[in-house]
């Protein structure tokens, strides 16, 4: 009785089908990764409640918008002022004061503007 050569081969087709289906499933369900930024701030080492000197350049994040040295400004004005400040020196410190009832989005916006103009020395105080 002769032994057939065909009987020794394993049919790989179903396995390949399954593997491809699994691969397609993972590729479709995979969510592309978000690119996350890190915005670094320094907390002043002062005792809580101690006031910051008014002579420093201070950006305030309020619930209803932004203020520079207590004067209300738009985002465009804020960008322009910070840009001009950065033009004189990138090492200048910016004090960002955030109101307790302000949303986190506002703070991130100011920090983003600071980074866009090249100001990296940011001190964050809470009010």
């Amino acid at each position, binding site marked *: 009785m002769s032994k057939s050569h065909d009987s020794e081969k394993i049919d*790989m087709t179903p396995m390949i089908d399954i*593997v491809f289906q699994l691969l397609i499933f*993972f590729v479709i369900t995979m969510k592309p990764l978000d690119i996350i930024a*890190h915005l*670094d701030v320094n*907390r002043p080492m002062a005792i809580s409640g101690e006031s910051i000197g008014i002579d420093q350049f201070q950006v305030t994040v309020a619930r209803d918008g932004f203020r520079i040295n207590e004067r209300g400004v738009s985002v465009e004005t804020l960008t322009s002022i910070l840009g001009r400040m950065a033009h004189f020196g990138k090492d200048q410190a910016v004090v960002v004061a*955030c109101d307790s009832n*302000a*949303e986190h989005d506002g703070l991130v916006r100011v*920090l983003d503007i600071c980074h866009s103009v090249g100001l990296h020395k940011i001190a964050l105080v809470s009010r």
Partner: protein
Amino acid sequence: MAKKVKKNYESNIDMTPMIDCVFQLMIFFIVTIQLDNDQISEKIKLAQSPNGPKIEKKIPGTMIIQLDKDGNILMGKAVCNEAALRGIVGLAVNRMGPSQVNIMIRADTKTKHYYVRRVMDICTEKGIYKIQFAAMKKKGE
């Protein structure tokens, strides 16, 4: 003159390397999906920061503290209170020293600063003065 004998070669392709590759791709996808979902809560919507420097690689000693829009503190996917957070931060500071602990706050875009301040105060209490905020540079399409 000798007659040429035409051999009947079987035209079977060796599938083994392809299957190896496909399996390796699958393992890669499974492993990467698992790693990314470990520490991050999907409920938190990060504020946009297109100009912020992107996170290139994980800094050793980074502690991610998450705050949802209601001000709840989340460590990983578990909610914890201020006392527990104080304990965790204190433990890390005692083990590595305050300069080696890197705090990253992932706060929701709608979180009131009052809650962020509470977390920052706990860190400052433990001697950590440098704090990072996570923001969305570019959303994965």
